[in-house]
């Protein structure tokens, strides 16, 4: 039992604490709500930003994307920055982890725009996050240059502020068909396997239509669940029709699964070509000798021969990558396309002669420049339909470019020998 006096003291003490707490809370609230204002833009640092899946299921690809952005960042800052009307603006890129979640990517895009005052945006990894973020960029009227969302559905929405430097999904495997038409004995039938995500289906539908117009027959077209790790039944279905060409449209995990199942089930086609996967070192590491002879459609390879208007040549780029990231081998095309997004933005800012988002957007729309990655030019929708895809083949554990012929560094090894004769 306490006395009345003690009680009064307690209450008074509590009242004091209450007001102190309230004051702290109010301060904290004000600090949360207001945002710091940025200084004048001329001569100042240009802030770019990108949410990436630095944790979660897209970590691998997001890491490659970040490498591509960072390679350019080192180079541009070594030069002193982007030159706008004879003023050099150094560049920073702010990254956030969206935990491979598209909804969180949207929050962080808004954070970059509102809080970090990002002048321009670089894309996240993946079609879902890119679609969500494109809507954010549009509503804020800030240009976003992206390198990792190839699904055309994003670009069919009439958005004005989203630009993709990469060739759209429908081009991914067309080069393989073009290549196949030059080979003897000429392949006549195709088995198409595809994951059911939007990017993979666009790739598959386009190549099936294309092969048909080139006189090939599509003997089987099977879709499977994105992320399936056991594709033996799909390979069985392909084997049943004894196709000349086996095409897969999916990702690294599925490409490995298809190749393993093809060997186990003795699916002996003349040509195996997969959309995404074989271009990464992980594919060769996972499959060893069995990775040989596999073709893939690639946005870029270390063997392409483009004459860049600025930035590094292809050879210099490969060397710069190996110097910054030793032990990882040649840069994958995810890295190269991400660097290309930065280059497109850089050149557009220079052309605009301004950091005004609207003017840079217009400069992006009118951009036409060739860099180590190839021609960068956007159609009315904002996607780069002008750069060709190239075809790679893994030969003796090494990636070689085999098509188009004018940039190839090796002849295609064809036909693929049967599994028991390797």
């Amino acid at each position, binding site marked *: 039992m306490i006395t009345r006096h003690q009680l009064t003291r307690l209450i008074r003490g509590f009242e004091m604490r209450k007001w102190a707490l309230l004051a702290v809370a109010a301060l904290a609230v004000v600090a949360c709500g207001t945002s710091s204002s940025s200084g004048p833009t001329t001569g100042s640092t240009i802030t770019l930003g990108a949410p990436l899946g630095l944790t979660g299921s897209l*970590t691998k690809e997001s890491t490659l994307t970040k490498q591509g952005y960072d390679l350019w960042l080192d180079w541009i800052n070594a030069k002193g920055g982007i030159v706008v009307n004879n003023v050099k603006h150094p560049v920073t890129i702010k990254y956030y982890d969206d935990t491979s979640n598209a909804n969180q990517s949207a929050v962080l895009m808004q954070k970059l725009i509102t809080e970090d005052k990002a002048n321009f945006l670089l894309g996240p990894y993946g079609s879902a996050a890119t679609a969500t973020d494109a809507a954010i960029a549009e509503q804020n009227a800030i240009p976003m240059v992206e390198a990792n969302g190839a699904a055309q559905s994003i670009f069919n929405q009439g958005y004005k502020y989203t630009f993709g430097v990469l060739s759209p999904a429908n081009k991914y495997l067309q080069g393989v068909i073009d290549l196949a038409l030059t080979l003897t004995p000429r392949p006549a039938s195709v088995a198409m396997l595809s994951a059911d995500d939007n990017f993979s289906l666009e790739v598959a539908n386009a190549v099936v239509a294309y092969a048909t117009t080139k006189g090939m027959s599509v003997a089987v077209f099977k879709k499977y669940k994105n992320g399936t790790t056991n594709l033996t039944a799909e390979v069985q279905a392909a084997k049943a029709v004894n196709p000349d060409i086996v095409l897969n449209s999916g990702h690294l995990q599925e490409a490995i699964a298809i190749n393993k199942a093809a060997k186990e089930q003795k699916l002996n086609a003349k040509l195996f070509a997969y959309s995404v996967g074989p271009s990464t070192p992980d594919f060769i590491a996972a499959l060893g000798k069995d990775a040989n002879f596999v073709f893939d459609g690639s946005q870029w390879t270390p063997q392409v021969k483009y004459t860049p208007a600025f930035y590094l040549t292809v050879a210099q780029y490969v060397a710069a990558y190996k110097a910054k990231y030793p032990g990882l081998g040649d840069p994958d095309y995810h890295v190269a396309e991400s660097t290309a997004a930065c280059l497109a933005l850089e050149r557009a800012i220079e052309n605009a002669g301004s950091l005004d988002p609207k003017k840079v957007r217009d400069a992006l729309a009118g951009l036409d420049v060739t860099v180590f990655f190839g021609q960068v030019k956007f159609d009315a929708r904002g996607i780069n339909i002008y750069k060709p895809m190239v075809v790679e083949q893994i030969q003796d554990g090494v990636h070689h470019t085999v098509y188009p012929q004018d940039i190839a560094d090796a002849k295609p090894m064809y036909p693929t020998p049967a599994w028991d004769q390797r």
Partner: protein
Amino acid sequence: MADFVQLVILGLLAGGIYVAVGVGFGLVWGVLNIVNLSHGALVIIGGYITWQLFSALHIDPFLTLPVDAVALFVFGYLLQRGLINRIIRAPLLFTFLLTFGVNLVIVNILLLIFGSDFRSVTPSYSGQGIELGPIVIPYVSLFSLAVAIALSAALAFILNRTRIGLAINAIAADRDAAQLVGIDLRHAYAVTFGLGAACAGVAGGLIAMIQAITPTAGEPYTLQAFVVVILGGLGRVSATVVGGLAFGLVEAFGQSIPGSGSVFANAIAFGLMVLVLVTRPQGLLGRLR
């Protein structure tokens, strides 16, 4: 006909992996009443141990499986003893949440250690198999199925023939009564979880040979473990074996539906699970408890 036989064989072979994944999950669920959302993460720890031993020391992956089992047993024992035992008397859902947090921790620590590269174990005999006319039986899948069956048999032996196994069974029947007859509940719970984790570790070693693994690769297996355990029926090892093989068959036949049918493999599997739950909650083979 040969196609049909091949499909059945493929389904059963694929089922081996599901048996291995499901049997530990089912044990922990059935006995401890814990739905372990970190089961897939435990599987992937086993996968990384096998990968590390194979790539650094060139040990045959099947020989690394006992290492997976022992390492994961110890890990699982400590996890249960240190953390999960603390909320056993809390409402049922708390185990979901605790193991969800544990899953987040394990996956991201794996990411710190191993990075996000896809890792895969490819022994020299990978991709080869027994050929019986048109029918092919790959060695890796065949051995995996054998390992999964042996694992289940070993688990059944431990549960039915050993002292600790009888204690675990007693807990499953009535926890409080088990305590009254002098069973050290904390230890017995930890051993049970350890056994479940050991099974997960072995499953992970097998999975590393079949697919490329990343730190997040275990998550689908947690979901599949639900289906496997429910299909077979909770509470018996043999039921989980049936559930795993049935799941493999369902998947194989789902995938063989022409055209776009195989995209529904997941929907079919989960729909079947719901159907089994609604019409036969004790599972295909299980008994009601």
